[in-house]
């Protein structure tokens, strides 16, 4: 049987529902306070550990390149090192700022409309940020090896043409496969978010 429910009809059902809900037993004080305390402890525990850990590792790598920069003799490796260091500082910083912004949304002062507008803006920014990140990650994967090899005294390895013949295509294929997979996932997630945010001008 197909039915179409009118808003007014819903209102009558809602009235019945509200009556039932009001008659439910009241939550006990001890239970409520126990749950609230537990929730507080949990919220302290979920401070985006993977993101913070990833950022710390990037910053350590960046610090390593900065301190070892003087040891790089090849100009091309100096350029690569600057590029890699910048990526390892800028990308995690933007990521952490985004998380911070998400966490400091004021659910008391802001209206639902304001919150949704911010989420919409953030989702557009996040989408563009991910695109740039994926492209830069590919470039990063290719350019990190030469300066690292020089610092570790393995210049022979990167001077070998055969190494590059193997490394570059494999690297590009990996970046392409991972990038396509990640984009498909983001697209799906973004579409879902857009559906939920439907009607926000």
């Amino acid at each position, binding site marked *: 049987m197909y039915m179409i429910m009118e808003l007014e009809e819903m209102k009558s059902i809602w009235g019945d529902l509200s009556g039932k809900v009001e008659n439910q037993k009241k939550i006990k*004080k001890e239970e409520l306070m126990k749950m609230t305390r537990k929730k507080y402890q949990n919220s302290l525990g979920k401070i985006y550990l993977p993101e913070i850990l990833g950022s710390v590792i990037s910053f350590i790598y960046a610090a390593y390149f900065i301190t070892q920069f003087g040891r790089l003799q090849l100009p091309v490796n100096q350029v690569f090192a600057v590029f890699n260091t910048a990526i390892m500082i800028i990308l995690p910083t933007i990521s952490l700022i985004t998380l911070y912004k998400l966490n400091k949304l004021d659910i008391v002062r802001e209206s639902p409309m304001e919150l949704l507008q911010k989420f919409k803006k953030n989702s557009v920014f996040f989408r563009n940020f991910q695109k740039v990140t994926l492209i830069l990650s590919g470039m990063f994967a290719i350019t990190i090896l030469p300066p690292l090899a020089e610092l570790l005294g393995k210049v022979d390895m990167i001077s070998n043409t055969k190494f590059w013949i193997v490394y570059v295509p494999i690297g590009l294929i990996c970046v392409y496969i991972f990038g396509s997979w990640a984009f498909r996932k983001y697209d799906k997630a973004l579409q879902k978010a857009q559906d939920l945010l439907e009607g926000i001008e």
Partner: protein
Amino acid sequence: MKREDEFIQLIQENQGLIYKIATIYTRDREEQEDLCQEIVYQTWKSFDQFKKASKPSTWLYRVGMNTAITNLNRSKKRVTAVPMDGLELNLMEDDDSQKEEQIRQMYAEIRKLGLLDRGIVFLFLEGKNHEEIAEIVGISVTNVGTRLSRIKEKLRKGVQTY
């Protein structure tokens, strides 16, 4: 009265409201329970602001809706809800199967709407007038009217359920 007792009283008086908000913004019982607890927690966190609020009823609706919206838009990292008797309700155990089906159908139709429209329908069903809905949601009174007309149209047009 102690702060804690005032908070308990507020939650006890409004646990039905919290449950209803959680139900329209979630898909299953686990999510619903988690959201109920999140709303209670957010209410506790900002309880001092509640005491200063000029319209306490508006305040709680806003906190409830905003918590639901924020939860849905955040990453899927979940903290398992603490099992708790009282906040979650099992209306599906109702004896009246026809009413039970109607409630299920109503929720299914509301969940097909966007986040803002879901909130507007919720407030409308709660008996709020256009001015009150506008104040809680943060849009103009005219916009509330327009959106409600569109929602009615959407429900008439394409929402078909068993």
